[in-house]
């Protein structure tokens, strides 16, 4: 039995293999977004809000402390006011930059949510009540189980299932795609979404969600990030950087008594001031990753959204980076979804042209893709033009599941094409002879992953049409790429094992599941998970729902049923099953960006020690000047330069945090080597020239 997904109707839009153009995307630094983010970064200074981010909270407390000391000294008229003022200023700027990064990431979602909200006008619903009468009620009064009528021009008042009728619906509000889609009762195209618009005909809809819980509501909440919860890895990383912050707090706090001892015993110099100690602390704690961590997570979700995929949680996006096994449906994902005639094989004594002629005639009225492909092949390869059958007395015999063949009775001929066994018995019944090569040829085609289609003219068996499953262009490369990422791809198909094996080999997948029932699929996922693997799959039918729910990443097609969409943890609004590959890449990119910026942040500390430690103790131990390898001008300029560099690096890395570090499918070892080189070694080296340049500038401007 074939899995339902294998029979799924061709998606309304042709799925593209290449990454989809970002339909809803805005430029990264859209002026409106910038304005909103700037305002929010000040609002986020509220310590109660900032307390959730331990690193930036420490910076804020430090900034407040230094500001207090500055004010005290300003009132008392003590010296070095310029230095203390600049330090406190840059510490505040550090917090603002981090807030800005987060605000930028959020602002994009908020802008999108606003756009979605505008479409959510006060719709009215035509509700049936007892006796079949219709009453007009506000959409907000609908409850699960109500049945409503939606006619051409109406907004569908809520999520539901079509129980009667067929209509074209404009779903551009949700998908961004303006081409209308068909929604009809029964089957896998019965789900409608509140807020979409009926363009023609009318349908009866049973409401499946209460107001406030609709798909559109959830979508708004998701893009806005209102329900954003920290993902497991993000929490773990937060623990790491909070722990590092504590360690540096210990290192800096104990430096004060150590300095006291050193100054006492050296009898010269001074214990570093609070401003300098706070500066050292802020430079050491991982402010770069601390400031950008939440922005990275929000931006990752946002990138998934730009790809027109609605992820129900950040956890799902993160999990997609961890996927070990990808289940791909054959039809529509790996192959084009319809078989095409590629070859005509006449039996001995039959002219190839005669076979082509018969095949074409029998297919002229056949509107299936297979039938059309036979017409095309006859035309292209044998120069047979389509004929006006109306001139003849023709009776077309449509395909039926019972006869398993179709054809035409024309000019006294009975042309038939169909499954080999069906044609075989058809010919036999008419007293025809079956050529010896018949079974052999049919088997050979099956083994190659094709479908044999026999053609007969009355009792004469003419030959076999080779119908082939066409693997989508670029699929093989895609699958090779997946393998390089360390992901096993498994093809799911309803075909027999022989055919499945042939297509699996052609597409290059690692494994296949033939004659797969939904139960088989679920079983396969469970087995993979028991071995410690994470599994991702796509699905759209109601009978996919258990497997979608079981999979670690379940990408449901928007064209699919409500049950499928509820079961999955992502919905692809484009209904493109290959989108899963993009989602996996985004998940990986998200993790890489976090790792890269953490590494960079920690590696940066080396240079900051070289800047600040000699500056702190130059007076006590002039010998420590040997550590001033950057040749910074004065102790004050050194400290200030380090603090300024620390702040500027946050704002400089905002684009990287929002866009994500580029992911290359080159295997973990090569990727690690590359990223260690850039963010680890680079992170150690980069601050040296940076701090040096800022110090030069400070000296030039007589700021320190």
């Amino acid at each position, binding site marked *: 039995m074939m899995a339902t997904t294998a029979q799924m109707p061709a998606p309304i839009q042709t799925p593209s293999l290449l990454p989809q153009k970002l339909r809803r995307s805005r430029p990264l630094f859209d002026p409106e977004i910038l304005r909103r983010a700037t305002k929010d970064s000040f609002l986020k200074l509220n310590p109660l809000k900032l307390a959730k981010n331990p690193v930036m909270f420490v910076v804020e407390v430090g900034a407040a402390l230094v500001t207090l000391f500055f004010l005290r000294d300003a009132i008392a008229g003590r010296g070095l006011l310029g230095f203390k003022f600049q330090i406190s200023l840059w510490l505040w700027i550090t917090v603002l930059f981090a807030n800005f990064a987060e605000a930028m990431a959020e602002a994009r979602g908020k802008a999108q949510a606003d756009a979605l909200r505008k479409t959510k006008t006060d719709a009215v619903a035509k509700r049936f009540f007892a006796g079949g009468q219709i009453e007009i009620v506000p959409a907000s009064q609908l409850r699960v189980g109500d049945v409503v009528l939606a006619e051409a021009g109406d907004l569908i008042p809520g999520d539901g299932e079509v129980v009667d009728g067929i209509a074209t619906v404009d779903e551009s509000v949700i998908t961004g795609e303006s081409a209308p889609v068909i929604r009809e009762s029964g089957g896998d195209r019965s789900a409608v979404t509140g807020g979409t618009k009926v363009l023609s005909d009318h349908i009866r809809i049973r409401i499946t969600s209460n107001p406030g819980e609709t798909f559109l509501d959830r979508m708004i909440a998701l893009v806005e990030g209102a329900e954003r919860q920290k993902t497991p890895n993000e929490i773990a990383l937060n623990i790491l950087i909070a722990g590092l912050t504590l360690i*540096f707090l210990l290192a800096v706090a104990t430096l004060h008594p150590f300095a006291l*001892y050193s100054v006492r015993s050296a009898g010269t110099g001074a214990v570093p001031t609070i401003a300098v100690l706070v500066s050292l602390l802020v430079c050491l704690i991982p402010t770069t990753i601390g400031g950008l961590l939440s922005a990275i997570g929000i931006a990752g979700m946002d990138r998934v959204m730009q790809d027109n995929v609605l992820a129900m949680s950040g956890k799902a996006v993160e999990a997609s980076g961890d996927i070990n096994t990808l289940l791909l449906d054959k039809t529509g994902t790996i192959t084009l979804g319809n078989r095409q005639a590629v070859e005509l094989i006449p039996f001995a004594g039959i002219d190839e042209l005669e076979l082509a002629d018969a095949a074409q005639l029998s297919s002229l009225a056949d509107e299936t893709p297979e039938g059309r492909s036979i017409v095309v092949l006859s035309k292209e390869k044998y120069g047979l033009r389509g004929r006006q059958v109306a001139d003849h007395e023709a009776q077309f015999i449509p395909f039926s599941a019972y006869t398993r063949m179709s054809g035409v009775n024309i000019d006294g001929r009975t042309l038939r094409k169909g499954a080999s066994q069906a044609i075989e018995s058809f010919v036999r019944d008419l007293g025809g002879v079956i050529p010896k090569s018949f079974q052999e040829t049919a088997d050979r085609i099956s083994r190659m992953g094709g479908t044999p289609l026999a053609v007969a003219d009355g009792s004469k068996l003419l030959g076999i049409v080779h119908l082939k499953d066409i693997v989508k262009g670029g699929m093989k490369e895609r699958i090779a790429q997946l393998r390089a990422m360390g992901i096993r791809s498994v093809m799911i198909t309803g075909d027999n094992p022989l055919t499945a094996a042939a297509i699996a080999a052609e597409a290059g997948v690692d494994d296949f599941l033939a004659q797969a029932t939904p139960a088989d699929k679920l079983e396969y996922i469970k087995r993979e998970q028991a071995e410690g693997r994470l599994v991702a799959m796509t699905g759209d039918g109601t009978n996919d729902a258990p497997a979608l729910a079981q999979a670690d990443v379940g990408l449901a097609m928007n064209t699919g049923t409500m049950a499928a969409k509820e079961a999955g943890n992502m919905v692809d609004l484009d209904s493109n099953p290959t989108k899963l590959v993009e989602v996996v890449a985004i998940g990986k990119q998200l993790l890489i960006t976090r*790792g890269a910026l953490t590494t960079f942040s920690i590696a940066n500390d080396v240079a900051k020690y070289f800047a600040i430690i000699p500056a702190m103790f130059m007076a006590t131990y002039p010998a420590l000047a040997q550590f001033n390898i950057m040749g910074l001008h004065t102790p004050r300029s050194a400290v200030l330069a380090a603090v300024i560099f620390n702040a500027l690096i946050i704002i400089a890395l905002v684009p990287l945090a929002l866009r994500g570090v580029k992911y290359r499918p080159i295997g973990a070892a090569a990727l690690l080597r590359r*990223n260690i080189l850039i963010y*680890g070694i680079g992170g150690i080296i980069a601050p040296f020239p940076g701090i040096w340049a800022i110090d030069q500038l400070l000296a030039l401007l007589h700021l320190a």
Partner: protein
Amino acid sequence: MTPNGMLLIAVYFAVVLMLAKPIGVHMAKVFEGRRTLLHPIFRPLEVLTYKLTGVDETAEQRWTHYTFALIAFSAFSFLFVYFLQRLQGLSPFNPQEFAATNVPPDLAFNTAVSFVTNTNWQAYSGESTLSYFVQMMALTVQNFASAAVGIAVAIALVRGFARQQVTTIGNFWVDLTRAVLYILLPISIVAALFFCSQGVLQNFHAYTHVTTLEGATQIIPQGPVASQEAIKMLGTNGGGFFGANSAHPFENPTPLTNLVQIVLIFLIPAGLTYTFGVMVGDRRQGWVIFSACSVMFLAGVLVCYGAEQKGNPVLSKLGIETAATPGQPGGNMEGKETRFGIAASALFATVTTDASCGAVNGMHDSFTPLGGLVPLFNIQTGEVIFGGTGAGLYGILLYAILAVFIAGLMVGRTPEYIGKKIGQKEVKMAMIALLSTAFSILVFSAISSIVSFPSPGKGATGQPVARSYWNPPGPAAANVANSGAHGFSEILYAYTSGAGNNGSAFGGINVNTPWYNLTIGLAMLIGRFLFLIPLLAAAGSLAAKKRTPTSAGTLPTHGPMFVGLLVGTVLLVGALTFFPALALGPIVEQFLMNQGKLFSFLLFPILGV
């Protein structure tokens, strides 16, 4: 550096490399419950032990039970050692008639904590403080027990990686018993006999009084030394029978015993890296740990040896020959035994602090600042360069978890180590362990650098104070023998050694006062238990996880890349945490020495120049 010295280091490393695999395989067999060659002899003893103590050797424990058993055992051991010292006046084998007054409560507390935590910090001198009975029953027994506890924790953590989807990590009592019977006891017996053959003492005699050629009377201490010596090195305990530790000719008489002693230090830790590989089913993982340790060991020993051989430029300027010649070793011989020389002393100092041994054959205080920095930094990074028995392996696995967590993200997957996903629990536990060491080193050093005790006669509010119990009046920092940066190093080293459970003394500081006995005792407790309990918790969490099969997308942890990553993580975390403190200690001291300033000769008033 001389060819002879380099050869010694090369030979030493070759021996460790050769022994790692056989001992590693043996230990894997022991802890996986497989039969070994020693079973005919020790299995009956093992069975008897379980029978007497009522332990069911097949019963597995969750991490919480395992930890509880460990704490209970350690608490009992502490009380046992404490009271044995306090009651030593009643003990047999006490020819010198040492009494409880020799070990006041604060010293007994410090020593008990010290031996239970495998630190073997010695605020006392064995030959003038403790009876033979206490040395054997309290201290030597703890040398076995605390080492076995360390091995048990390491094995429990390894099981966390090796097992999947289970709630238990082994049985503490079984691991403890097997570590003692099949590993520590047999090797110690052989090593003790070897030491006896080389002239190490093993008797219960009273001290001998002899008259020297000059006519002076010299007291020559005696005692059961060899039996303690073997386990002191093998168990990375380091507590010497005599105050002078392995510099004493009765503990470490010849260059050969010296070599065997440092081989014994690395024997189990190096073997455990291989055991790890066997138990997780991928020997390459064990070799990677071994390689990372080797890189750091060789780097450390070369820096230390180089600095010591280079000697003190101030002395060179005075016309003292510091170059090695056939007739003399050159370099910085201050505080070193002439029978060992520069290379064997530098090697010993590096090895004893790479591991958490703490035995010494020379005075680290007298090393050049850079030469002394190596042992100090070795301890501060957590003694993970092979490390203590068990403690080294669980320490470096902590760093492996951190390295995988930070760098592993950069391959675009939730970090995995040995197929186990590193999540919140593991990171949290690793950070707690890391923080506890940093805390006890830095905070106690900070307090002792500035705290001051009131003089007798006038308290803070002017009321009369009879006597300062905690420390002699004045700053606690006045207990150091040297001023300035060197004095600071002495304080920092004392707490580092305690918190790191090393036990080696930098020296130059009087630590036998209630203040130092208490604070260093606390540092030892925090450094041991707040490090080891989080790792047991991590073991429990890891054991419950599934093991993800590796793929092309998995961070490879079995190649040179990961060796580099692991070394980088250890060095970076250590350096970032302790750089400010080190800058004010050995680093600035080295700069000053190069400029011709030495702290031993400078006193507070003169320094004001």
